[in-house]
């Protein structure tokens, strides 16, 4: 029952942060960041198991591994950008948080370009008239 551990960790940190925040808000913030990182580290182990499983499925299904790896990279970018943005927003820096999120979105779009171009090429080969127009 690891969920009990995580919930307990979160509640303890919440109480401690409430106590510390009255005197020194900086330390309360660092406390929050630290707990967030510990929970995230715990989650990364679980995500690794999932990713191994999906990769195995992709190998068995003869999917090109580069596409699967791109999807994993996109998931990683999404997680880490969300994490950084929420910490920045917690510290009261909403502008920085928005920029981090924007960067995450742009980088995800950039990483998805090969997949999108492959999809477009496949669709164009499926439609004879369209492929005639574009080539």
């Amino acid at each position, binding site marked *: 029952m690891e969920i009990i*551990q995580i919930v307990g960790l979160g509640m*303890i940190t919440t109480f401690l942060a409430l106590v*510390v925040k009255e005197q*020194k808000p900086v*330390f309360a913030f*660092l406390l929050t960041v630290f707990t967030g*990182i510990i929970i995230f*580290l*715990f989650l990364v182990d679980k995500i690794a198991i999932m*990713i191994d499983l999906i990769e195995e499925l992709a190998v068995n299904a003869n999917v090109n591994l580069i596409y699967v790896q791109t999807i994993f990279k996109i998931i990683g970018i999404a997680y880490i950008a969300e994490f950084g943005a929420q910490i920045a927003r917690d510290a009261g820096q909403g502008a920085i948080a928005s920029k981090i999120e924007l960067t995450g979105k742009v980088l995800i779009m950039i990483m998805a370009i090969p997949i999108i171009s492959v999809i477009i090429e496949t669709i164009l080969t499926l439609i004879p008239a369209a492929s005639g127009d574009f080539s």
Partner: protein
Amino acid sequence: MNYDVGLIFQIAGVGIVVAMIHTVLKQMGKEEIGNWVTLIAFVVVLYMVATVIDDLFTKIRSVFLFQS
């Protein structure tokens, strides 16, 4: 959960102790020294947090296939 959860209590304890020291030094009329104590304690705690952030980023890089 192989990470030291005790570090959470350590950070909170440092925060409370620094707040107490700051208050005492303020009563003694030495607020400058209190500010320095706060700054140094902040740097120490920041070092602890930065070490764990480095761990997290290394792990994410290895899990999500960011080998670069």
